[in-house]
């Protein structure tokens, strides 16, 4: 009989670090069933030279400064950071330190009682491992209708925001959550129109242009916006055909904003340097997918299953994925 099911993919070595036995067991089960049995440790300990892991999953709250340093070195030694931190941190507690010290690029929220977003864990692990990163659809089950809009000039932004307000109002979600959605769309569109476009030499075309000055992209340079919603989350994505955003740019801007120092708000020509910070504040899960020189896609998910208080109590997830051309 010929096998109909190929049982193993290429071996993926996953290291799971969690000192809590119950939580470790739960995580190990999920990873075993979706990727393959991970190695487990209670603490990070030493990462021997060239530690041959495709992915390290660890609870941020269980790591000390030395652990974070070793994880950063591990990330830096690989072309793609392959560390996924789990954390219950929120905008007001936990995240300022994590982002202020630039210690992460992949973060998955656990709520206060350590409840894990299992779907989020699976999607995130697979995106890290498989390098198939694009698409809002990955975060929703099949059957959820997606609506799309195309924009290529700043004069269209107000009309688009009006449509999105209408869409959010049809969903019947609390006004405070609808306001978050509007903030995200506004910042996504402004970023895509003004910060993303580059010329043939890779120079930013409108980054220093006043946001009150209207701009129009070339006819073939279209920004695509998608929205969809299920009972639990409202999703929005925006993609541009430039792929000019870099991991370090995002991390630097977020670090600057979380540090709350004198330079928190940029006073240069162009944007205020607060966009990513405002977006992260308004989202439950912020994903940035980059194919350099080709595409940047930002995905935002807002947990609409409860009130604003429920939204702000839960942790935040944040990922940057970069694939080579």
């Amino acid at each position, binding site marked *: 009989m010929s096998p109909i099911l190929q049982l193993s993919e290429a071996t993926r070595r996953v290291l799971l670090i969690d000192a809590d036995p119950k939580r470790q067991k739960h995580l190990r089960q999920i990873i075993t069933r979706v990727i393959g049995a991970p190695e487990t440790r209670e603490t990070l300990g030493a990462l021997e030279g060239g530690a041959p892991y495709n992915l390290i999953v660890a609870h941020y709250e269980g790591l000390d400064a030395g652990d974070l340093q070793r994880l950063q070195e591990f990330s830096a030694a690989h072309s793609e950071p392959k560390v996924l931190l789990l954390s219950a941190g929120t*905008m*007001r*507690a936990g995240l300022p330190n994590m982002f202020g010290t630039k210690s992460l690029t992949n973060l998955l929220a656990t709520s206060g009682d350590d409840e894990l977003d299992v779907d989020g864990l699976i999607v995130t692990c697979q995106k890290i491992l498989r390098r198939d990163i694009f698409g809002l659809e990955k975060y929703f089950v099949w059957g959820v209708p997606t609506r799309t809009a195309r924009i290529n000039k700043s004069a269209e*932004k*107000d*009309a688009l*925001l*009006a449509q999105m*307000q209408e869409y959010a109002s049809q969903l019947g979600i*609390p*006004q*405070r959550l609808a*306001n978050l959605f*509007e*903030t995200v769309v*506004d*910042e996504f569109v*402004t970023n895509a129109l003004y910060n993303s476009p580059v010329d043939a030499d890779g120079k930013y075309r409108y980054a220093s242009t*006043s*946001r*009150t000055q209207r701009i129009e992209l070339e006819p073939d340079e279209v920004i695509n916006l998608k929205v969809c919603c299920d009972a639990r989350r409202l999703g929005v994505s925006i993609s541009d055909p430039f792929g000019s955003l870099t991991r370090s740019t995002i991390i630097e801007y977020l670090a600057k904003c979380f540090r*709350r*120092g004198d330079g*928190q*708000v*940029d*006073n240069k020509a162009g*944007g*205020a*340097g*607060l*966009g990513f*910070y*405002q977006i992260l*504040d308004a989202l439950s899960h912020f994903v940035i997918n980059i194919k350099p020189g080709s595409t940047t896609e930002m995905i935002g998910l807002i947990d609409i299953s409860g*009130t*604003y*208080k429920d939204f*702000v*109590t839960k942790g935040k997830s944040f990922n940057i994925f970069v694939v080579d051309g």
Partner: protein
Amino acid sequence: MANSLNVKVEKRPSGLWAELSGDITEDSEFNAILSEKPLLLTLDLAGIKRINSTGVREWINFMTALRKDGARINFERCSVAIVQQLNMIANFADRAEVHSVFAPYICPSCDTEEAKLVDFKANPTPDLEAPVACPNCKETMEFDDLPESYLAFRQQ
């Protein structure tokens, strides 16, 4: 749609009173206030719905210009959107005194959302979780934010 910013200015015996409403964005202008060169200014911010990232900078520049003119500034009736920025942006209030803010409530029974005024002069240490009756169904509403950090800007 971005609702453009409306500014209504009124000269009162206590100084200049300016009522702001709408969204604060890259298109917002504060000339109606700045041209008065007020020495004592009260900003009524109840009507501010949303502030985007470039709007934050316009606002900071507005605050800086007022300070250079020597104005003493009070914020009254700050909307929930303003409180959000007070907590996120270190110098959003600059040297202004925040006298009163709105606190958000939601009814678990009928989903009515309502903001209730919290006046720090009358009540310097407000209890945000004190019972508030729903104007629609009379059930007790819930404070719709984190009570321990909603007023964090007062400690910063």
